[in-house]
């Protein structure tokens, strides 16, 4: 035998590559073909500006009315990011996040929601509310007669009475210095602005709340209410006793309820809370949760309103930088990637199989002056003007934002956005266009007149952030010519250290619009907690006080103009642009709509449906 070990190995290798079809034994049964029924036609499909499809064209920025539809089988996959779902109760500071809300907002309905441009709409399928009196401000809420939790219990005023107790700063453990809220709730505004529990039959569908003073943001005060009957049951308190304790603000009696409310819905990843404690009153309900992978929602059979267009919604936990390829491979159907030029060109390479929607978001970038002692800008309006004249706003938008969102414009207001209807009106009233064009010469003259040549301007921001570094570089190349010396002091602890210590002249950062009308008071009012630069102006303060104390939209509109004018005239800072947003989705998924709000593309997930 002349075999060698290696030719034997070759035989082994060659053998494994051989293929001869031959008699394989028959199995017990053939795999029965689970033929899927052809999807039902949804009638005509309308194509939108970006090539996206709609089964019904939206009439305004709110949810489109799909009419009578039947839920189509199948599933659509979406991802917010790699963060795991945490808890059914997303109303605690620990669990409150866009990741968690992406799931819970599909499960629990609210009276109001934000349209794609940030406008507030009533969710009439769930219920309605109306202002019944201005003084005192009284609002009456009516829950849909048919509204039920998925366990069959009707949604009633009791849920909202408990909510008022949960978000009540007067229900505390301990007292004085040691007082801590009994319920670990995300917000305490409800109890703060409304001093008496909602009035109405706990078992009924109506309740009324009376504000102790006029409150501008009353339409969105009452949001997610968790099921009171579950809390009553699980804490062993019983509904009547619990609501009685809530009305009396009796912290001691409420302890068991608070204990359940704070932690009772928390489960370890992969374990869905039991159906009996986590019912749904929205279009979807839980189906399954694969820890670290995805959570699947399925149509809520007990939902009384328009059923979801597609039966299953899969929310996968995948890091944002994997989304584009996952979309290309069909692992995800709808994504919201980072709005950068790189991502956009990757998406464009995918061709016709996907649709890209770009737009602006409610988050906006701005330069704010430091008014603290020691800042050269603090008491020098002329110098602030000089700086505003040399900042190349149009160039910044053209170079950094337009490649992503071709519609992007320089923002000339703070409280309204370019894509909102009232924007032009407000800008016309408040801003004269002085800073539209870069005027280095004009800036130089002012700097020289003020004798401020060589003034060091430290521009701080939270680093690393390439876009902000580029922005500062653009400002530097323009403003250095005007006589300023721009210094980039972006650092990782900007908000933590640099800003509170006042070690900057100009801050570059963004505010995320909350959709509230009066939230800006915190930023621009002398007493505002977020007035980091210590700006103070009597007229602006007065206008904010008037706005926040009024519930009349006409007053709001008027005061916004006064405020914007005051902020421009005194140069609180310089608005730059609204951040761009990108949504991309498989071309066959219809009804996906980009939104400027923080709820994300998933805001109308119940309407997503596959259409040919």
């Amino acid at each position: 035998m002349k075999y060698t070990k290696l030719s034997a190995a070759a035989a082994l290798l060659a053998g494994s590559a051989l293929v001869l079809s031959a008699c394989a034994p028959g199995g017990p049964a053939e795999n029965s073909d689970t033929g899927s029924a052809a999807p039902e036609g949804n009638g005509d499909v309308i194509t939108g500006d970006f090539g996206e499809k709609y089964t019904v064209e939206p009439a305004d920025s709110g949810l489109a009315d799909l009419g009578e539809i039947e839920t189509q089988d199948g599933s659509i996959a979406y991802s917010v990011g790699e963060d795991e779902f945490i808890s059914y109760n997303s109303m605690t500071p620990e669990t409150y996040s866009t990741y968690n809300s992406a799931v819970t907002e599909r499960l629990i309905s609210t009276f109001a929601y934000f349209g794609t441009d940030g406008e507030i709409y009533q969710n009439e399928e769930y219920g309605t509310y109306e202002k019944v009196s201005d003084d005192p401000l009284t609002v009456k809420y009516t829950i849909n007669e048919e509204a039920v939790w998925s366990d069959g219990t009707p949604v009633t005023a009791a849920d909202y009475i408990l909510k008022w107790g949960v978000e009540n700063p007067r229900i505390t453990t301990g007292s004085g210095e040691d007082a801590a809220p009994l319920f670990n709730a995300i917000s305490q505004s409800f109890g703060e602005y409304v001093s008496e529990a909602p009035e109405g039959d706990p078992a009924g569908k109506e309740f009324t709340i009376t504000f102790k003073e006029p409150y501008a943001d009353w339409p969105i005060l009452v949001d997610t209410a968790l099921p009171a009957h579950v809390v009553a049951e699980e804490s062993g308190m019983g509904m009547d006793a619990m609501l009685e304790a809530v009305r009396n603000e009796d912290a001691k009696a409420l302890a068991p309820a608070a204990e359940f409310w704070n932690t009772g819905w928390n489960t370890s990843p992969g374990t869905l809370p039991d159906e009996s404690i986590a019912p749904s009153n929205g279009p979807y309900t839980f189906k399954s949760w694969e820890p670290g992978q995805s959570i699947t929602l399925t149509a809520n059979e007990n939902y009384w309103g328009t059923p979801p267009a597609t039966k299953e919604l899969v929310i996968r936990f995948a890091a944002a930088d994997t989304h584009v390829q996952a979309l290309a491979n069909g692992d995800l159907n709808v994504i919201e990637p980072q709005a950068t030029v790189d991502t956009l060109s990757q998406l464009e390479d995918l061709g016709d199989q996907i649709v890209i929607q770009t737009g602006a978001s409610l988050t906006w970038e701005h330069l704010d002056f430091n008014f603290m002692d020691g800042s050269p800008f603090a008491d020098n309006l002329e110098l602030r003007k000089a700086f505003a004249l040399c900042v190349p706003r149009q160039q910044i938008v053209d170079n950094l934002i337009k490649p992503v969102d071709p519609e992007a414009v320089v923002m000339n207001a703070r409280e309204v956005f370019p894509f909102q209807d009232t924007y032009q009106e407000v800008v016309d009233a408040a801003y004269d266009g002085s800073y539209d064009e870069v005027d280095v010469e004009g800036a130089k003259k002012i700097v020289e007149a003020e004798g401020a040549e060589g003034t060091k301007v430290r521009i701080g921001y939270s680093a690393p952030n390439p876009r902000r570094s580029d922005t500062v570089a653009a400002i530097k190349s323009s403003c250095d010519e005007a006589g300023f010396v721009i210094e980039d002091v972006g650092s990782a602890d900007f908000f933590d250290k640099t800003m509170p210590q006042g070690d900057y002249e100009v801050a570059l950062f963004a505010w995320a619009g909350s959709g509230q009308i009066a939230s800006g008071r915190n930023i621009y009012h002398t007493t505002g907690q977020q007035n980091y630069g210590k700006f103070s102006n009597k007229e602006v303060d007065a206008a904010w006080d008037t706005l926040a104390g009024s519930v009349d939209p006409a007053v709001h509109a008027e005061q916004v103009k006064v405020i914007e004018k005051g902020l421009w005239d005194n140069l609180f800072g310089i608005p730059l642009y609204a951040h761009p947003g990108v949504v991309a989705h498989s071309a066959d998924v219809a009804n996906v709509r980009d939104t400027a709000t923080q709820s994300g593309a998933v805001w109308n997930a119940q309407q997503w449906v596959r259409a040919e």
Partner: protein
Amino acid sequence: MLKFILRRFGSSFLVLLGASVLLYVLTINSGDPLADLRESNAENRDYLMQQRTQFMNLDMPWYQRYWTWLTGVGQCFIGRCELGTNRQGQEVVDLLGLAAASTLRLVVLATVIAMVFGIVIGILTAIRQYSGMDYAVTFLTFLFFSLPVFWAAVLLKEYLAIGFNDWMADPGFTWPAAIVAGLLLGVVLQAVLAGPPRRRLFTFLGAFLFTVLAIPYLDWLNFAQYPQLGPVVIALVGAAAAVGATALGAGLQNRRVLYAGLVTAALGVVSYYATYTLLWDPTWTILLVLAVVLVIVAVAVGRLMGGFSKGAATIVSLFTAGVMGLLILVEHLFRAWPGYLEIVGRPISTIGSQTPNFSGTFWEDFLDKGTQLLLPTILLALISLATYSRYTRASMLEVSQQDYIRTARAKGLGERQVILKHAFRNSLIPITTIMAFDFAALIGGAVITERVFGWKGMGEMFATGLDQVDPAPVMAFFLVTGTAAVLFNLLADILYAVLDPRIRV
């Protein structure tokens, strides 16, 4: 020995304790745990900050926070581990269990593959030192070793996931593709097998012709969508495995060993028919029982037929049985493939460890988890291939210059025995150390690989914890990886003593 082990344990414990203080302090000072709230303009921002400060004990001095954590961990000794909660209020113990499970699933296979292939490549390149193959393999392993993971992952996803899935929709080869594949295989095979020019030429031609003919044939069979082996192939490959293993392990002149291997192969074909219905939709228990039966039968055949070469015969028939078992598994996976394709459409995902809500037969489920494991396993194995192959090569070369190798050759032993029995065994000693460390590092996870493929493993837990300046998950990670490092280090020391009699004290 016991005293040595105990002393090692004592000092390791102190090291762990010191390291935990250091890591805790570093973690809580690594950033601002309130960073995300500072830029928020929510009305209740200050209240949220206050609530988080309370929840994470940010107002306590570091030693008090550390002490709280340490007392929680201390309860592990009485069986009630209290590793605290992360910033979202989730129990870290639960997270740790899930993360460790997912990490192990991800890296164990890759590490084993890297070890086996790395060692084989190391031996081959050492035998053919300074040949064209040696240079080519050295170049390739270093290339793989220096690949940036995130970039390689993106490429793999582009070609092996998206590209492959697109191809699967309408599989087929063109003639140029078949010819290129044939040329490649021919060049590689002749380099591996080597020999005089004539033999190289024949090897090359054989491989080339085989590939160029086989690919269109497979295409014609629509193998990509309806793959199958069939009993003939299984029998042929099984027999080839028996012959190959005998040639390597005992030499073909040893008929008893050869026949033991062939009988095992024949039994394998019989069991292919016998278990066909049983394996139609099995469970893990059935597979496990069958695996045990397989081992028992193989050992019995080897011992009964081996005669004087019992040992070698047992090893050969075990190897053959293993190959037969794998072939039978592959046959069933092939059978399930068309059904699986029908369910998922695009078989290889770019993210995740399984298709959400997948339900199918045992084999379809197996395929689903297997296909998702494919890309990260390839990536991790390619990258760690270099370490093993280079260490084995160096170690083999060093050993083959020893006096006892020369002695072995001088007394007339065959090349097979010199390499496998004398050189290879001794060269394994230093590799043991790397293996032990590698297994310890395993549990630490692969941060980037986990991230790009969407697995929630240990690395991800650590990275997220650090990012949120959240000490509990970071410390849990440390606890597990630190302990594993210490334990495996100890194990390596003990193994060393077992393997190498010279250093036994």
